[in-house]
C-alpha cells in the first residue's frame, strides 16, 4: 500500500472497507501531512486532531461490528470555516468570530458526520467569503502549493490548497461568485458549485443568501461526485432547498461519455483581459472535447458582460444585512464595553475592530445600494439584469447541453499583487459569477498548465439547473482524456513541499 495521502477518496474508502488500512491510520497520515506542510501552506485555521481521530475510530468500530459503511466512510475532509461545527471554532476568517464555538452543526456538517467522513479541521478563507485570493482572511493568507508566493484562489483558498497539497483528499467549499471554482482552477483541482438549492445552506454563515451554495472540492471528478451525493438533498431547515431527487452524479462520473453531446462555447467569456496561456489551454480543451465526440458550437450570452456589476450590487446588499447580526450582543467579539458606552457605540466599535477592510467596503457599498433613493437604480436594476442573465442561460441551453469557458481569466496571481485594487481582484470571478446569478450548476476541472507561467488552468463547465449530473459526465470524460494526454493526473505535477 502506497502513501495514504496520495490516494483518491474512492480508493481510501475501499482500502478502509477492505481492511487494508484503518480509518485511524488514514486520519493520522493526513494529520501528519498537515503537520509537515501546513506551516508553509496555511490552509487550516483549526486542526481538530482529537475530533478527527475519534471520528475515524468510530468508523473502524462500525466496520469491526460489521455495520454497513457509506461510500466515503473514513475518508478525511477539510471543511471551510464558514460552515458551523458544534463545539468546534467557526470563524469565517474573521476576528469578529474569533473563539466562537457554535452550539449546533450545519446540515452539511451533520451529513458529513453521518456519512462517516472524518473532518480534519477548518480551512482558511477570505473573511466571510469576500474575496478571490484568501488574502482577506484575518488570520493571514494561504499559499498556493504550486507556487507558495501565489494565491490559492478565494474565498475557499484553504480548501483548494488542502486538497492540492495532499493534506486532504476532499474539502467543502462555498461558492457565491466563484469561491469553489476559481480556487479549484488555480490549484489544479476539481470544484463544483451545485445547483442553487441543491445543498442545504443551514449552518453556512451567509455572505449573500441568494447566491451562496456549498459544494465539493476534490482531486478527481469521481471523488467530487461521491462527496456531492453525501451533502446534497432536500433539507426542511432551508426554505430555498429544492425538494427533488439529487441528480445521479456518481453514476454520471462513472459513465463518462460525451459522444453527441452539444457543447457551447460562450463567446462573451474570452478575449481582452484573458491571459494568452489560459485562452490557449481553453481552446485545446474544447478541441479535446470535440475529439471525444462532442458537437461544439459558439453560443452568445449577451448579458454576461453585466454579470460582474450586477453581482457587486446584489452580493454587498445582501451581505450588509446578513452581517448586521455580528453586533457584540449575543456571541463573538465585544470591544469597548467600559461600562459607560451605550450598546450602539459598542456595536459600532466592535464591528469597526472586528471586520476587515474588504468586509467594511462591501457593507458600506451594500448599505448604499439599498438605501432609499438608490434602491431602484442599483439593487433593483441588478435584480433585473439577473433575470436577463438567467434568460441568456435558458436560451443557450435550448441549443446546447452544457456551456464551457475558462474558469478564470488568469492563473494564480502573486500574493499582494491585487491587494490595493479591489476592481482588479473582482475580475477574477468574471466567468464564474453568471452561474451564481442564475443558480445553475457549474464545475471547474483542470485543463493543463499555462504555457506562459506553468500554473494550472481550469475549464469551466456549466449545466442547467438540476442537471448537475451533466457536469460530471463531461468532467469525467474530459479528465480521463487529459490524464491520458499528460500521461498521468495533472495534480501529480504539483511540486513537493
Amino acid at each position, binding site marked *: 500500500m502506497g502513501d495514504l495521502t496520495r490516494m483518491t477518496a474512492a480508493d481510501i474508502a475501499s482500502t478502509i472497507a477492505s481492511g487494508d488500512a484503518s480509518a485511524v491510520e488514514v486520519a493520522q497520515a493526513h494529520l501528519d501531512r498537515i503537520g509537515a506542510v501546513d506551516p508553509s501552506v496555511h490552509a487550516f485555521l483549526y486542526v481538530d486532531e482529537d475530533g478527527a481521530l475519534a471520528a475515524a475510530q468510530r468508523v473502524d468500530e462500525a466496520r469491526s461490528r460489521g455495520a454497513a459503511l457509506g461510500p466515503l466512510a473514513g475518508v478525511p475532509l477539510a471543511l471551510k470555516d464558514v460552515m458551523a461545527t458544534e463545539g468546534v471554532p467557526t470563524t469565517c476568517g474573521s476576528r469578529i468570530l474569533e473563539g466562537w*464555538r457554535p452550539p449546533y452543526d450545519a446540515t452539511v456538517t451533520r451529513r458529513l458526520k453521518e456519512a462517516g467522513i472524518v473532518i480534519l479541521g477548518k480551512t482558511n478563507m477570505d473573511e466571510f467569503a469576500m474575496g478571490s485570493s484568501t488574502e482577506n482572511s484575518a488570520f493571514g493568507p494561504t499559499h498556493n502549493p504550486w507556487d507558495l508566493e501565489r494565491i490559492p484562489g478565494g474565498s475557499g483558498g484553504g480548501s483548494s490548497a488542502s486538497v492540492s497539497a495532499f493534506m486532504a483528499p476532499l474539502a467543502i467549499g462555498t461558492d457565491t461568485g466563484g469561491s469553489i471554482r476559481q480556487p479549484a482552477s488555480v490549484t489544479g483541482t476539481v470544484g463544483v458549485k451545485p445547483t442553487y438549492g441543491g445543498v442545504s445552506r443551514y449552518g453556512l454563515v451567509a455572505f449573500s443568501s441568494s447566491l451562496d451554495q456549498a459544494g465539493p472540492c476534490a482531486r478527481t471528478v469521481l471523488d467530487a461526485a461521491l462527496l456531492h451525493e453525501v451533502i446534497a438533498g432536500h433539507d426542511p431547515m432551508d426554505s430555498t432547498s429544492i425538494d427533488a431527487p439529487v441528480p445521479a452524479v456518481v453514476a454520471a462520473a462513472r459513465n463518462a461519455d460525451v459522444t453527441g453531446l452539444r457543447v457551447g462555447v460562450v463567446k462573451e467569456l474570452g478575449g481582452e483581459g484573458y491571459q494568452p496561456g489560459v485562452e490557449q489551454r481553453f481552446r485545446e480543451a474544447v478541441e479535446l472535447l470535440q475529439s471525444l465526440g462532442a458537437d461544439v458550437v459558439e453560443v452568445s450570452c449577451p448579458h454576461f458582460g453585466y454579470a460582474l456589476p450586477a453581482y457587486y450590487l446584489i452580493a454587498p446588499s445582501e451581505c450588509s444585512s446578513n452581517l448586521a447580526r455580528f453586533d457584540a450582543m449575543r*456571541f463573538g467579539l465585544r470591544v469597548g464595553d467600559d461600562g459607560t458606552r451605550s450598546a450602539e457605540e459598542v456595536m459600532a466599535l466592535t464591528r469597526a475592530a472586528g471586520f476587515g477592510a474588504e468586509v*467594511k467596503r462591501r457593507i*458600506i457599498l451594500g*448599505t448604499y445600494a439599498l438605501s432609499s433613493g438608490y434602491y431602484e437604480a442599483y439593487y433593483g436594476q441588478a435584480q433585473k439584469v439577473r*433575470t436577463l442573465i438567467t434568460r441568456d442561460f435558458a436560451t443557450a441551453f435550448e441549443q446546447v447541453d452544457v456551456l464551457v469557458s475558462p474558469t478564470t481569466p488568469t492563473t494564480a496571481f502573486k500574493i499582494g499583487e491585487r491587494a490595493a485594487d*479591489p476592481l482588479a481582484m473582482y475580475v477574477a470571478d468574471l466567468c464564474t459569477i453568471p452561474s451564481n446569478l442564475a443558480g445553475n450548476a457549474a464545475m471547474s476541472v483542470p485543463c493543463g498548465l499555462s504555457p506562459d507561467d506553468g500554473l494550472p488552468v481550469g475549464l469551466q463547465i456549466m449545466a442547467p439547473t438540476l442537471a448537475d449530473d451533466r457536469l460530471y459526465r463531461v468532467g469525467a470524460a474530459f479528465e480521463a482524456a487529459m490524464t491520458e494526454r499528460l500521461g498521468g493526473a495533472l495534480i501529480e505535477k504539483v511540486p513537493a513541499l
Partner: protein
Amino acid sequence: MALTRDEVAHLAHLARLALSDDELDSLATQLDVILGAVARVGEVAAADIPPTSHSVPLVNVLRPDRLVPSLGAERALAGAPAAEDGRFRVPRILDEEA
C-alpha cells in the same frame, strides 16, 4: 456622483461601523471607483423585465406548527460576551426603537 465623506459617514452610521476619518476618506474614494464600475447595470434596457430575488422557482415553503426542543439557556448563553441571571447582558440602550 462623487460621494462625500459625510455621505460615507452616514452610511457607516446606518451600518454601525465606527470608522476613522482616514477610513471614511479612503472609502469615499474607493466607493466612487466601484460605483462607477457597477453603475453599468444601468446601461441595460430592462424597464419591462421582472427582477429576480430568488433563483429557485419555489413558493409556499412552510413548516408544520410543531415544537422543536429549545437550545436551553445554558447553551444559548455559552457564547455570549456577557450574561447575567439567565439573560444576555448588554451595554445600556439609548432609546426605544420602532
